[in-house]
């Protein structure tokens, strides 16, 4: 399909679904059915099987027409991680059941992967799923679950066979978050807020039809999910977007707090941020020509380092004002803005940038091993039954 044909499809759709007079949800469902939701997905599942590169133009045309969007920021895990994994590993029935309400935002998703004992080492999950007839009974504790209190469904990794080595005994499920065995507790962070949750699963029942991929294939499926997380390198960024923009504005606004050493540190970070921006641009141009690789890890690494250094510098620049904080009250924010609230919040929140979505240490391993081809770490846990490993 050429881009002009695609434009024609959008025009046809808009001609029959006037955004101004059509109900929002009805409009979104119809857009999905027309294959104009995520155009790279196959026909019948919200797409037309055309190259991903064409998505931007379709989105642009809908925005131009004043169409409602599916509020993607409210369902980041669903759209960015659950959907591509369901598409890749799901049965036809699963795709038919889950993808449409996911895309329209009717069903919000969250992720039940990390556990207190399985952070960087995701394959170490201890949450157990035991088969019981046509269903699985799940018990365990998950952590770092954002949006769990709003989610209808979760992608879940659980251990189904403790006699297997750790990577082989895992299975991937689609878990109903309204199950009575699910308890969601807010997990307060160093900012004072509870952006994430702990999730306790007690005899949660999941029908076997909600298993994604084969039994024991959970590690492979989970990796597909995580790759989607890590290669996400964002959209074209403008110069001085993100943390550098915030701190540069503080600099411009506070001439009396400037010192020569802060000036040079700020300039260094400005250069680093600009270099990261340009490097991201170059990587995106490369990706447009081929497959995403592990190179994106370097971008995330740089992003975290720069954000942390900048937000630390900002407090020094502010001096006395940097000693003050907005509010320690424990709240559950609906959305997270790394550069929002006040400078103290930015400083504390940025500490998470090098932990969430792959710690900087794990990213360095990935670069060293997958990009540079250096030897993997010596491991002693790969061939031993999981139950025999020292925890």
């Amino acid at each position, binding site marked *: 399909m050429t881009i002009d044909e695609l434009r024609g499809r959008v025009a046809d759709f808009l001609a029959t679904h006037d955004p101004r007079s059509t109900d929002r949800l009805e409009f979104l469902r119809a857009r999905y059915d027309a294959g104009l939701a995520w155009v790279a997905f196959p026909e019948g599942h919200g797409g037309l099987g055309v190259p991903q590169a064409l998505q931007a133009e379709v989105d642009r045309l809908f925005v131009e027409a004043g169409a409602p969007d599916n509020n993607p920021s409210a369902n980041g895990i669903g759209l960015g991680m659950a959907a591509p994994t369901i598409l890749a590993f799901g049965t036809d029935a699963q795709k038919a059941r889950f993808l449409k309400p996911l895309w329209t935002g009717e069903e919000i998703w969250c992720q039940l992967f990390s556990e207190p004992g399985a952070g960087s080492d995701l394959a170490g999950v201890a949450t157990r799923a035991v088969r019981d007839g046509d269903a699985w009974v799940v018990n365990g504790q998950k952590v770092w679950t954002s949006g769990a209190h709003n989610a209808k469904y979760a992608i879940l990794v659980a251990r189904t066979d403790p006699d297997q080595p750790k990577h082989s005994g895992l299975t991937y499920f689609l878990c109903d978050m309204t199950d009575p065995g699910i308890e969601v507790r807010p997990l307060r962070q160093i900012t004072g807020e509870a952006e994430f949750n702990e999730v306790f699963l007690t005899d949660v029942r999941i029908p076997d039809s909600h298993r994604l991929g084969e039994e024991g294939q959970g590690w492979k499926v989970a990796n597909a999910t995580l790759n989607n997380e890590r290669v996400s390198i964002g959209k074209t960024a403008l110069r001085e977007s993100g943390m550098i923009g915030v701190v540069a504005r503080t600099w411009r606004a506070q001439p009396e707090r400037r010192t020569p050493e802060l000036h040079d540190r700020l300039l260094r970070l400005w250069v680093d941020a600009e270099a990261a921006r340009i490097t991201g641009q170059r990587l995106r141009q490369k990706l447009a020509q081929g497959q995403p690789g592990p190179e994106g890890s370097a971008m995330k690494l740089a992003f975290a380092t720069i954000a942390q250094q900048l937000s630390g510098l900002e407090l020094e620049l502010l001096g006395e004002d940097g000693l003050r904080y907005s509010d320690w009250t424990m709240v559950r924010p609906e959305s997270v803005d790394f550069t929002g609230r006040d400078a103290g919040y930015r400083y504390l929140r940025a500490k998470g940038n090098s932990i969430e979505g792959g710690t900087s240490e794990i990213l360095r391993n990935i670069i060293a091993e997958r990009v540079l081809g250096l030897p993997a770490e010596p491991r002693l*846990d790969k061939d031993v039954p999981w139950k025999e490993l020292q925890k």
Partner: protein
Amino acid sequence: MSDLNLLPTDVEDDLRATVRDLLVDHCELSAVAAVYDGDRSLVERLWKALSVDLGLAGLLVPEEHGGAGASTREAAVVLDELGRHVAPVPFLTSAVVATTALLDSDHALLGRLATGDCTVAMTVPLSIELDAPGRELASVTADDGGRLTGRVTSVAGALEADVLLVPTVDADRLALYAVPVEQAGVEPVVSLDMTRQLADITLDGIAAELVLADAEAAVRRALEVGAALLASEQAGVAGRCLETTVAYLKERRQFGRVVGGFQALKHRLADLYAGVESARSVAVSAAAALAADEDGSVATAVAQAYCSDLAVHAAEEAVQLHGGIGMTWEHPAHLYLKRAKADQIAFGTAGAHRARLAGLVDLPPVRA
């Protein structure tokens, strides 16, 4: 320069053990964290135990005023331990800064400080730089009748104080007045470091007692001693961050191995160890230099320039190397991070101390 003794004396070792025992028993980190949610019950209880029961309030007060007549060396030991426990007590502000400011005054307050009967805070912003001009040191004015008017923001120790020691400016002389805290407007500030919570002070024509008419030297000396000894607190914060991180990484297993066995982390911890040892050394050196009255300004500038950033680095490494758990409220790492970051700004940033050092050791900046 003679070689100062940088090792603890037996007296200092005993003092450290005593303070540590008390803090281990009475300064649980969960109670410290509670101050962020407004429960400051620990503060008064702990400060009473330290100041009165152990008699630390009078550590620097001369014996003739009923104090212990100890030196900055002993005070540094206390601050190191307080830093290790992020203890939310006004030792630095009252027993060090305010006490030092009063030393030349022979004022009765010294006796009350010595017994722990009275806690004092000098009203300067915690972020004050040592070479700040007089008008920044003193934003309050006194009229002829000794009535004070003005506002000082971000004052540490004021919430715990009974008496405020107020630097005032008048023509170009800096004086020091004492005001009972009840008579001042004291507005608590939501602070980055709630374990040293700040307050904004408003004085609205309050009658005050003149303590020192020509106080600039005393005030500057108090700030320098405060900055020098803050380095020991920072060294304590850093040392504790290193210890708890090493201990955690010896337990935590991922990928079938103890995480502390991964070489990249080992090397970072080795570098951090080297940094912490240096921080301790320069902190002790500053305290010893002030005690011996030998080149104290350079030692203070070096100690602050080094320890301010090192403590932040140590706390940041602690958060990072604890992984996700270090980002949670329930783990105490954040208490150290916030203290370290606020301490970095207290009495001027490391950059400010380096700039001051340049003048002290003849490394002049770019010619104008």
